[in-house]
Structures are given as structure tokens and as C-alpha cells.
């Protein structure tokens, strides 16, 4: 957990260095923060970014591009044919490779742009004019957790800072009362994404930048409730005494910013204790808003609540929100090894109304301009059948589709192409590093200059790669 405030001077120097050419002193002077060393104070990027915050709808398990947004008429024609020269080790199950399989879903043109969209997204289809599709995504692992790490931290290894951590490290937080980087996982007991908390870890960045996982049950954040035996007045009396005694102590140590910061942190904590539960309480929303997201609808209630929470978060200045659709692997997430039709129908059904509601709501409130919404998972799926009780599809690291909306990206556009059957990214290939470079760019960063010095090396999210996908930018 990690929100506001202060850190030691030596550390801050490190962070200043990380911001490339930006001088630390000027940065702090701008914020009037000299001497307070606040690791989450709002900071500026390298240039004015179009987006202030990010909501990443993580389509966990690997959504199938050819069954969602990447319409492949050629695949229909080749349905049932063997794919010659196919490397059986591409997916996870080398012994279950079947022939090519067309999408079990119908595609129809949607929106003004006429984007062909799968029938599993009846409501989301209405929003294609807000979306910029990237059809040529590709990644480096055919296995869930390395691919998840790749998508979240830029390398298929455990232990590097995640996108949300980099972003809050670079931009700080606009919210004093809420965590800067929030993660929501599946609340239906279907598990956590593979690799668990490493998917929102800060790696070698200070732990203030790690994502705060909202517990799906009970209090979302630890220690937010006053001890049961105590009244508000009694706690305030405690805090008053604490302030007084700390005040005596600091008299002998004038000018110690760290001690001052610690005194302040109790005031902030008290405010958070009141403000955070309010922010998480979606029941305060009017009925028509809840309905818009699908709150109360049986199959999508859980995701609707999370999307609505996400909006309440960004509205209050939270920098980065990630929501995982689905739990762990197989039938518990979009990992449709078995019965791709049933699997994707189910998970699309869980998310279609809530995400459509989120886009509508953000737009109506004027938040969409500042909020980059991302839809995407860790890899795509093969256009072939995975032999199973009911036909499924296996992992495909060579091609996936992701889309972005709001936050300064164009609507109704598509970037890159997969090959005619959706097996490999073919035209204008977009590596995961490129997607990350683009996200950072929208937030105002030169991805090559957002760096952190650790064990003798300057690390960055995009490692040694990354190019901004400019054609989708407004």
C-alpha cells in the first residue's frame, strides 16, 4: 500500500536523477516542496501529457483476437484445414493441435467507422468510434506468467517495476486520500492472475510505488477502520496527544523534514480513514449510473462494481487503475483452451455492459479526455483448434489485439494488421515495448528518459526497445 508522502533525501536524489534531464531542484521548487521529500507529490512528465490517469481493463488469460476485434474472413474459408508448417510448440499443449477454426461468433459492422465487431460485444460495439485498435501486438512468451510480466513490466521476468509503478514514480499522485496505483482482481473466487502480486509490484523501485491490491472481500484496504472500542472523539484525543508529544520532541530538532513529515502523515492518515471508504462506496451512486454499468445484473454485477469503483478512483485523482477480468487459468479466465465459444461468451458477458458503461460515464463527465482506457491481455490465441471436449484455442504470443480509448488517442482507427488468418502480427508490428512507450507518451514521458538507477544500471520500462505508436494519437 502506498500513498502520499515523504522520503529520505538520498532516495529522492535518486528519483530526481531518474527523471532524466529534469532538475530535481526546479521540480521541487515548482511544487513548493523543497525539504519535504514527498515521493508521491504530483510531478510533471517530460512534456505535457494528454492523459492524467489510466484505467487498464486487463483481459486476463489471453483473449482471442479472431473472436473479438480482429475480423478474419479468410479464416472462415480455411475452416477445418490443417495449417501447414505450424510449430506445435507455439501454444502450451503441443499434443492437442487441431486444424484451423473460424470464429464461432458473427461479426457485424459497428459505429460510424464500421468496425467489424464480434457478436459477444453488443454494447461495447457502440463505442468503437472511441477506440484505437492495435491488431499487430506480439509478445515474447507463450506461457501465462512470463507473458503477464511482459505486459505489466516490459520483460518476461519476475521482479521489474510494473507500468503503474513507473507511472506513479514519474507523475506522483493527484490524490492525498487514496493509493496512487490500484489493482482489482476477480472477486468470484477464481483466483489471481498467474504470478500474483508480482504483476503489480514495484520491483526495485521503492515500495511506495507498488500497486495497492484492493481485497475483493471485506475491507478493501488494511487498517482503514478505527479500533472497535474507540470513538472518533477518542481517536482524535489520541492524535492530539501524539501531536503534542511529537511537537515537544521536534523542538529539539528544528528543521528535520523527515520528522515533520511523519507528524503530518498522521493527519493525512486520519483524513484517508474517512475519505477512502467513501471513495469505495459505490452505493452512493445514483441508480441510473449503477444501471448504466450493469450493477445488479447477475452475470456482470461484480465487474460493473469494479468499473464504477475505477471511475470513482480516477475522479479523485488516482493515477493508475488496473482491473483483471477473470481469475487464474483455463475456465477461470479468458484462457479458452476448452470451448472457446462458451468461454469467451461468458467473459464477454461479464464485461460488455460494465466497460461500455464506463466509457459512456467517463465521456459524460468529461473524464475520458484525461483518462486513457486500455483493453488487453497478456497474449492472443491461435486461429487453430485446440482439441478438447469442445473446441478451444491455445496461447498465441505472435499476435494479439488491444485497444485504447480516451487520453488523447484517436477513435475509430486501427493500427497494424495480423496475417490473413490472425496467426502472426504482419503489418506495422507492435511489440509490448511499443505499447508501453505509447502509454508513457500519452502521460507525458519520453519512455527512454523515464529511468531508475539500480545496481549499477539505468533501468527503464521499455528496456532497450519501444517506439511510440504515433498514428493512433489524436
Amino acid at each position, binding site marked *: 500500500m502506498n500513498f502520499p508522502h515523504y522520503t529520505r533525501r538520498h532516495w529522492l536524489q535518486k528519483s530526481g536523477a531518474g527523471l532524466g534531464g529534469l532538475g530535481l531542484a526546479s521540480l521541487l521548487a515548482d511544487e513548493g516542496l523543497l525539504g519535504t521529500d514527498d515521493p508521491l507529490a504530483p510531478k510533471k512528465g517530460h512534456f505535457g501529457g494528454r492523459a492524467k490517469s489510466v484505467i487498464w481493463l486487463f483481459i486476463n488469460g489471453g483473449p482471442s483476437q479472431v473472436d473479438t476485434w480482429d475480423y478474419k474472413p479468410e479464416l472462415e474459408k480455411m475452416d477445418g484445414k490443417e495449417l501447414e508448417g505450424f510449430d506445435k510448440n507455439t501454444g502450451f499443449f503441443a499434443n492437442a493441435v487441431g486444424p484451423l477454426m473460424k470464429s464461432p461468433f458473427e461479426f457485424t459492422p459497428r459505429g460510424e467507422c464500421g468496425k467489424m465487431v464480434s457478436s459477444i460485444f453488443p454494447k461495447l460495439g457502440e463505442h468503437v468510434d472511441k477506440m484505437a485498435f492495435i491488431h499487430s501486438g506480439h509478445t515474447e512468451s507463450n506461457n501465462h506468467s512470463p507473458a503477464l510480466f511482459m505486459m505489466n513490466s516490459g520483460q518476461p521476468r519476475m521482479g521489474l517495476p510494473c507500468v503503474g509503478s513507473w507511472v506513479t514514480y514519474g507523475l506522483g499522485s493527484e490524490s492525498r486520500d487514496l493509493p496512487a496505483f490500484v489493482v482489482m482482481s476477480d472477486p468470484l473466487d477464481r483466483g489471481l492472475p498467474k504470478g500474483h502480486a508480482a504483476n503489480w509490484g514495484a520491483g526495485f523501485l*521503492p515500495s511506495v510505488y507498488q500497486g495497492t491490491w484492493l481485497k475483493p472481500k471485506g475491507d478493501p484496504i488494511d487498517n482503514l477502520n478505527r479500533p472497535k472500542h474507540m470513538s472518533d472523539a477518542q481517536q482524535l484525543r489520541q492524535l492530539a496527544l501524539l501531536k503534542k508529544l511529537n511537537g515537544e520532541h521536534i523542538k529539539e530538532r528544528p528543521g528535520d523534514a523527515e520528522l515533520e513529515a511523519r507528524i503530518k502523515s498522521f493527519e493525512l492518515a486520519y483524513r484517508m480513514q474517512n475519505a477512502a471508504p467513501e471513495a469505495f462506496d459505490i452505493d452512493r451512486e445514483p441508480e441510473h449510473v449503477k444501471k448504466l454499468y450493469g450493477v445488479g445484473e447477475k452475470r456482470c454485477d461484480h465487474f460493473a462494481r469494479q468499473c464504477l469503483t475505477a471511475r470513482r478512483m480516477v475522479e479523485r485523482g488516482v493515477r493508475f487503475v488496473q482491473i483483471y477480468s477473470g481469475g487464474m487459468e483455463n475456465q477461470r479466465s479468458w484462457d479458452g483452451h476448452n470451448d472457446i465459444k462458451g468461454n469467451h461468451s461468458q467473459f464477454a458477458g461479464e464485461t460488455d455492459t460494465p466497460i461500455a458503461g464506463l466509457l459512456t460515464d467517463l465521456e459524460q463527465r468529461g473524464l475520458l479526455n484525461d483518462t486513457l482506457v486500455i483493453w488487453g491481455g497478456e497474449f492472443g490465441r491461435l486461429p487453430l483448434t485446440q482439441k478438447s471436449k469442445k473446441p478451444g484455442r491455445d496461447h498465441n504470443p505472435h499476435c494479439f489485439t488491444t485497444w485504447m480509448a480516451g487520453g488523447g488517442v484517436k477513435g475509430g482507427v486501427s493500427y497494424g494488421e495480423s496475417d490473413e488468418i490472425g496467426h502472426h502480427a504482419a503489418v506495422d508490428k507492435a511489440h509490448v515495448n511499443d505499447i508501453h512507450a505509447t502509454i508513457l507518451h500519452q502521460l507525458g514521458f519520453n519512455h527512454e528518459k523515464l529511468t531508475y538507477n539500480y545496481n549499477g544500471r539505468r533501468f527503464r520500462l521499455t528496456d532497450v526497445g519501444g517506439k511510440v505508436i504515433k498514428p493512433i494519437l489524436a
Partner: protein
Amino acid sequence: MRKQVLTIAVALSGGPVLSQEGHAEKMKEGIALFQKTIRPALIDNCLKCHGDEKVRSGLDLSTRNLLLEGGDSEDAIDLEKPGESYLLTLIRHEEEDLEMPPKKDKLPDSLIADFEKWIALGAPYDKPLLERKGERPAEMRVTDSDREFWSFKPLAKVAPPKAGGKWVKGEIDQFVAEKLQQNNLLPNSQATDRDRIRRAYLSVIGLPPTADQLKAALSMSHVDLVDELLASPHYGERWARHWLDAARFAESHGFEQDYNRKYAYHYRDFVIKALNANMPWDEFVRLQVAGDEIDPENPLAMMATGFLGAGVFPTQLTEKEFESARYDELDDMAATTGTAMLGLTIGCARCHDHKFDPIPVKDYYRFVANFTTTIRSEIDVNLDSEEYQLALKEWQVRDAQSMDARAAFEANPKLVNLFERWLKTDARSSVTQSEWMNLDVKSAVSSHKATKLKQQAEGAILAVGAAGAKEIYTVKSAPPSGMMRFLRVEALTDSSMKRKGPGRASNGNFALSNLKLLAVSRDGEKRELKLVGAKATHQQNKSNLSVASSIDGNFDGTGWAVDSGGIGKDQAAVFELEKATKLNSGEMLEVELRFSNNTQHSLGRFRLSVSGNPAPSVRVGGGKDSAISAALEALAKGTLDEKQRKVLFQQYLISIPEWVELDAAVRNSLGTKPKPSVTKVQVTSEGFKPTKHHADGRGFPHFYPETHFLSRGDPNQKKGVANAGFLQVLINNGKASADWQEQPPAGWKRTSYRRTGLANWMTDVENGAGHLLARVAVNRIWHHHFGRGIVSTPNDFGLQGKLPSHPELLDYMARRFIASGWDVKALHRDIMLSATWQQSSAPSPKKAAADPDNQFLWRFTPRRLEAEIVRDSILSSAGQLDTKMYGPGTLDERHRRRSIYFMIKRSRLVPMMQIFDQPEPLSSQGSRPSTTIAPQALLFMNNPQVVSWAGALAASVSSKETDEAIRELYRRTLSRDPTATELRDNRAFIDAQSSSYQGTKNGKQLAYADLCQVIFSLNEFVYLP
């Protein structure tokens, strides 16, 4: 991609091919400037690392084309916007940690202006800076000039400067005083006794002094206090945690399933024990790298190897990932060894020559090759091997004595004569003809392959291996002599079974579903000998689990079982043959025992016997081997052979009380054989069975017999086999890796001894890496005492690391450290006895203005306690600390042991630790940040554990008079009495809070608990004074 962009930029702005107006004049002016100032500046300051000996960061300045290509991450110059060129940013020192030229003064402003102008003129060269036949230098060469970098040099021999005057308490202070003097700073005065004592307690053992300890310490010399604390077992628990950060220690794999490494905690215990025992640091290092080779009989040495295997590893792998996962694992071992022990970022040379340090990519793979066959295994380690060996030897002597005594008795010629007489006279009458004759078993098999039926002494049969759900045992025996009227099945106990059996079911039961007796002719023809009546010593009931149900023809529903009072005891069942039978000649006897009416309900140990007696007793035991009756028959016929003679001799011996006593001594001795105290330990070694892995089923090999040089770190681009070797930059005086490498001793096959060679080189202070090893160790300890190392990047002593603030002091201490035999506690002592350490932490705006980071040590830097120490201090002050040491840890936040005993599971890091900056255990961490964030305050305010510990502390004082209670609380938590103001404020709080709890049960105690929480939250409580 960058390169493409650059090409376009060059084309647009008029690079090499240009037809712009005024171009010729610009070129002329540019070349003139180049010749006058730029060329000499480049040659003097830049070329060595950027084109000549090295091509650091991929930037080569030797020709214009190479300059235009730029470095790995940036274009060096921007011809369109010359002022924004990255090269200028670096030489203007606008990028921290990348100031160019490095470790040198900034270039004069006029020269920097020339650079900008020259770039604006198109950055022309008159000719390349280097004449080279080939293009780029093929690979990095490590030269003697690389060894001139401060940290690679041998330790300087320095005498402490004459500085500091009376303030000085030891040599350390002389070095510190000199630097202070040079910077016009004066040290702070000595800290108060209370601050000094509290600082010593928190620094050395990580717990605040109790009121009694404080009192004792006040009347003790500082030396005695330091020695006492260093001797405390808590010292190891506190300082081990520092090393565990550097060792990226955790107890789970990470990745997909994050499986627990159940036996990894032994490494944590090793570190605690080694520190407490003041193990010399070089030994500490050697054991972690190669303890399994250097001292394999020493359990601690085996546990030490947990270091290498503590890194993350995927739990799920596809075939495509096998090899790259292994190279990642090797990288983790090599990188962590490099960083934690040598302060070198070796891992950076995996894909290319190190960009900053003189570590060629080849050195990296040779270094990695030391770990080629090294893997994680879980093995049984004998914890008390020495004690055990000793006890075993003693026992063997005793055991031999009793055996000898019995043998001597048996060999006595007098006895032999008596036996001969006995044979003639008493044999037949004294060897009782038994009513039960044990079958002479020839074979026994189970239908379930995993079950093996082993024949034991006296006709017993033991079932070993995993029991099958249903099984049929088939036992074949030689034909018993004489008439058979009854068959007996003895169900026998054994410690191999649950509750000693006699059955293999999870409750010790069995169920004999069906029993069949067959006569088998020589040509395999079988005739069933029908069983009709049944009796048993015990049966579970009279119906479906009765003894009669074993011959009721119902296979899967009924059968003799013995629960309800019969478990853990020997039992017997007797079955009557329909007809008394004598086998025909050539016939064998076969018994089929079927266990199928309940899962895994087979017999664990049993014996079969027959009787010709018309009414034999139903009992356990007393069966005689058929060999005896055969021998008696032979005796009667006068055909007694040597074997039969021996059988009868045994019978004779049983009748002699003296012998029985001697025999009992032998049997007793067996029961007292010492058993080793064995525990499972996770080790990182070679030749043991690898720790089980998900991908074993896919054929995951765990390691490959050879390590290859890889191009760009890619296992698909192998460039030949890399032999084990060490880093050239730390090989001095013309030595070679082979000088440290060792062959395994004769007869040693399990490991390669490559890591022993590595350990030799790392700890060699003559020609190897020993001096750097000492520098890095001393600096770590200094870092944890002062909150900042002499080198403020404890994990990086390379060119990217910070230069030491007190280089002579560091070398002086490192030299002393080596000379002391790498004595860690002596080093602590030196540091803590210094005036530098004993200074007050009082702030001074004036001094802070001159040295805001206190790098020159004008005061002791106050700082927040680490996560573990915050928690441990609360527990200890509240009298709640459980001081049990070692053993498996826990994730339960309610536990009350020291925080080092939290289990470290990578996917479930303990929130209470994380919130106070305990790092993620993914790669080596040399220093922790110290953040102040609101969730920490929330923890003090609302965390259920903090509240409960505050309650416990309150309960111990709340019955006292208010002022006395407050005084006691202050002593226990803050090691001092409250001031008058504090007393007043606290009293007022207690009064107000108590009255607000009026009507609540325990109102007063709650008020005190609330006060305790306030005290735990105080800056004073959580800061090192």
C-alpha cells in the same frame, strides 16, 4: 528503429551528402574548430572509453559516421537542434550519474560552447581519431589501466592521519576528523548516555533496552556494553536480516504458482548462526558459494548453499522455455554472487560487454559457467553429525562386545560336547513339537506392483511400498511335512504402519476379503483345498467384518477386520480344512489372500502356518519352522546334515539360561543404536536429485552439462562452450583462473569443484578478488551503522557506483578486517567504540548547509527503524516478544516471534513489513529506502496487532497509580522518564480518556492502551536516536 529515425533526420538537415547553401564554409569553419579544440578534447577525455579500448554505451567517437550512429539509448548529437544534443547534456553535467567525462572535472565552459558550435556546424571531422584496419574493436580488452580504478586496486596501506586531537577515540576518528577539517566542519559532541545505550541496543540487537537493562548499562563501560550486546543471540537475528536483503532471500519460487520452498528457512538460520558464532567473513562467503564441497559433513555448510538457489524460478515451463529459464537461473546465481559479495554488477554483461565496468561478455559466461551443474535440491541432512558419529562409534564398540560374548559362549568346546550329548538323549523330548508349523515360503507377490512382499525371519512377510486400493497377495511354499488340518493367518504389527497396523489402511486396519488355499502340481495344475470353519483372536464384528466372512465367497463386501480394539496388536485367525490333507509328492502349497472390500486395507505384516493337530489353539506365535521338524526327523533317521545340526543347536541354546541372557544383551543393544537427527534442507549443489518441478513430466532437464557463450543473451545463438573462469579485472600479478581451480579429491564424484575454485578466487587477498570482497563487506557494515556507506552504493563498486567519501578509511578498515581474520564482531567494535559513532544526532542548520547528507559525519544520522525493528520494538516493549529462535517461519501476522521469522513468500509479502520498506526479494538489495507514508500512520492507529500489543502493555501498568504507570510506560518504551510537561499531558489524557470510557468494562485499561498506542507512534519511539 532509432537508427532509421536518425537517418531521416540527417538527410533532412544536411548530413553527409549535402547541397545546402554555405555548406563549404560551414565545413571549413567546423574542421578548423575540430582541429583546434574538439579533437584534442575528444582524445584526452573521451576516446579511451568511446572507441579505443572500449565502446561504452555503444558510443564510438572515432569517426564521424560512428558518432552519428549514436549510442545504445540516445543519439549523441542532434544536427537539427544542436543545443539539445545528448552529448552536450552529459558534458554539461545535466544528467545525474552520467556526468562526462566521468570522475573528472567538468570541461571548461568555453570548450563546451565550442562543442555546441561544432555540432551546429555539422560536426565535421578532418580525419578519424583512430586509424584502424578493421571497423570496430572486436571485443573488450581488460587492461592494467582498468585495474587502476579505485575499487579494483589492491587495498592501500595507509596510516591514520594526525587529526582530531582530543575528540579522537580510535583510528576511525582520525580519518573522519581529517575530512571534517577539510570541509570546515566540527563533529557533534558525545551523545547522552541514554541515547548512546538506546542506539547501541537498537543497532546491535534491534530491540530497545528494558528498564533493567538500561539501568545495568548506565553503570557499565561502553566497551563492556558493546561486547555484551555483540554476544547476544539477538545480534544474529538483527544483522542476518541485512544480509538477507542482499541475498534476495525468500522461501517460495515466485512466478505462476509461487510454490513454497519448505526447507529454505535453513539458509536464514545459517546466516543467524554464522553471525552469532562470529564466523570469519571469508568463510561465510566460501560456505555460501561452495559449502557443499568445502565441508560437506557440516550441516551449516550445506545450509549455507541456500544462498545460490534463493532466487525466483518459474513453476510452469513449456519446452521452448527450458533453456532460457536455466540461463536466467544461472544469471541469478552469478549476478547475486557478484552484487552481494563483490559489489559488481556482473549481470549487466549478459547481452554485451558491460557498458561501464571492465567486464567483457566472455568474462560473464565464464563466471556463469562456475554454476553450470549447480541446482536446487532437498536433501536429508544429519543435524548433529559429529555427535551422532561419536555416539555411533561408542555403540558399535558396545554392540561388538555383546556379540563377542555370545559368540564366545557358543564356541566353548565344553558346550559343544554337552550339545552332542543332548542330541543323543534329550533332543527329541525337549524340542517341543509345535502344533503350528510356519510355511517354508518360496515366493510372495502382490497384484499391486508398488507393493513388495519381503520375507523376514521366522516366516513373517512384510509389505513395503505404497499400498494399492485393492490387492491380492499370492504366497507359495514348500509342502509341509505331514497332515494339514488347519491354516493359520497371523496379522502382525510393525512400526512401518499407521498405529503399527497390522493393516495398511490409514487407521491401521485391514480386511481379508477372501482366503484361498491351493495345492499346485509340478505342471501347474491347481486343486483348491476348501476351508470351512474359522476362528480368530479378535474380529471387528460378527457379520460383514467377521473372520468367517473371509471364506464366505463374497469378495468385495465382507472380510475379516480387526478394528474396535484390535489395532496395534498381533492377531491370528484359524481356518479349518474341509478334509485333512497331505500333499502329493511334487505338489506345492499356495495361499491367496484377497483385500478388496475396502481401500488400501491390505495386511502390512503377516505369517502363515499350518497344523496337523486336530484341535490347535487359536493364538499368535509358537509356530515352529518346518526346518526343525525336518531336522528332528533326520536326527531320528541318522541323516542329520550340517545345516540341520545348526537348526538343532539353536534349539539347544534356547534351553540354557546363561545363553538366553547373552542373547538378550545382543537384542537390547540393537534397540539402543543411536539414530541420526535428520532434517530436510534445501541446498544448492550438484549431483543430488533436483527439487521436483511441474515440468518434470515434460522432460525438463533442470540443467545442461555445458554453458555456452551466447550472443545477446539468446540461447538460440550459441557461440561455443564457456569454461569456468573468473573476472579478468580482479586477477592480478599475471595469474590465471586455473591458479585457483581445484580438482575434486580422489573418490569424490558428486560435484565438479568449480565453485570451490570460485570461492578460492573470491577470498584470495594476494592475487584474487579478496581485497574487493573486504571493501564491500566493511562498507555494508558501515552502511548499516551510519545509514550511509562510505560508498553510498553498497551494491555497486563499479564505475557507475559512487566514489567513497573516505577512501583511505575504507581501505584502512578493510586491511584491518583481513588482518583480524575477517573478524566481523571486531569490526563492529571498532566502529561502535569510535567517537564518530558515539556522536550526538543533534541537528545543526549551519553544518547541514555545508553537508546536508552528512556524508562527512558531523553527526550521527538519526533515522527511522526498519520494518522488522519497529515491530520487534513494540513486541518487546509490550513484553510480548517470543524469543524462540530458528525453524520454519509463518505468514501469520499475529505471531509474536521476531520479524525475521516471518516466512517470505513472494506472492504474499507481509503487509506490515512492506509498508515500512522491506524490499521485494527478487534481486539483491543493498540499501532500503526509508519512506514516510500515511498507511504507516494508519497501521499505528488501527492495526489489530498494534492495538492488541498496546493492550498487553497497558494491562501490565494500569493498576498502578497514574503518574507511576506513566513513568513505567516511558521507561519500558523510551528508556527514560517523562518530563514534567509530558507527565502532565499524559495524565490529562488518561483522565479524559478514562472518563470517556466510563461505563465500559476495563475503561481505565482501555485508556492506557490508547496511550500505549500513542507512545508506539511517537517519532522518538521509531527513530534511532
